């Protein structure tokens, strides 16, 4: 994958060598290392927070915290998992802050109008746009722990082990949240819309 400067790291520039350089204080190496995950990380924050400007702010904060903590990273998990864990903590902190505000800002489904993949045929886009809207609205309406579970497992496609580690809970607790989240989304969207989508 291309780095933040759009260049594809050469074969010799492995994640391990970038990590070693970053831990020695090389900002450019840190950017190349973390830049490989920047789009996914931003997407995760956008989906969890539902607000692009806030997701941009938190994404900058995540990278700063990762940079400040890079020397403490010992490779007990993958770098990706470690970075996502920081993102999850920052997203939760932002959501808690939001919840404490007198007039809490809720995620408006209209704010979370994510584009469809360009390779999708126009007819299929039209067919699925209603379902996408309903799903996005249902996800946005979930309590943060349930939203996190379904986003990490189903949207991001992470394994249960990885997703549980990022969410900071046991695999059993994570599964419980995931199943609850799916049941709530199913109830919100309705069986008819789901079954007729032909998924």
């Amino acid at each position, binding site marked *: 994958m291309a780095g*933040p400067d759009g260049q594809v790291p050469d074969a010799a520039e492995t994640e391990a060598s970038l990590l070693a350089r*970053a*831990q020695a*204080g*090389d*900002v450019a190496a*840190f*950017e190349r290392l*973390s*830049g490989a995950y*920047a*789009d*996914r*990380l*931003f*997407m995760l924050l*956008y989906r969890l927070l539902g607000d692009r400007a806030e997701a*941009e702010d938190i*994404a*900058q*904060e995540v*990278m*700063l915290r990762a*940079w*400040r*903590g*890079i*020397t*403490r990273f010992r490779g007990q998990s993958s770098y990706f998992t470690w970075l996502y864990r920081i993102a999850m903590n920052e997203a939760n902190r932002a959501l808690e802050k939001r919840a404490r505000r007198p007039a809490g800002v809720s995620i408006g489904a209209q704010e979370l109008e*994510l*584009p*469809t*993949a*360009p*390779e999708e045929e126009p007819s299929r886009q039209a067919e*699925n746009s209603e*379902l*996408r809207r309903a*799903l*996005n609205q249902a*996800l946005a309406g979930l309590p943060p722990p349930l939203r996190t579970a*379904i986003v990490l497992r*189903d*949207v*991001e*496609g992470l394994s249960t082990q990885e997703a549980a580690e990022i969410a900071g809970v046991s695999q059993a607790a994570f*599964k419980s949240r*995931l*199943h609850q989240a*799916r*049941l709530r*989304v*199913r109830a919100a*969207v309705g*069986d008819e819309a*789901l*079954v007729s*989508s*032909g*998924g």
Partner: protein
Amino acid sequence: MSMPGLASDHEWSQRHLSHYVEGDLRPRARRRLDRHARGCVDCGRGIRAMRALVYAVQGLDGLAGIRAPATIFDRVRLAGPGGAASSQNA
């Protein structure tokens, strides 16, 4: 007259549809849900709906259309090389 166990099987099945499609049920529990769903239109449809839900949610990633902002490393650049080193002693 209601059949003993029928309502509880239905409620139990409805609560475990996600476990079912995820493959999280033990064989005996899976057989219980299978047996119930064969005679229950709602639960048969529920299984199809849950499978469709997981499939549809997986299609929401939209990664191709979203990019991280160009400013994502701005605070790191401001902190500079000392930003990482200084935290070592923090």
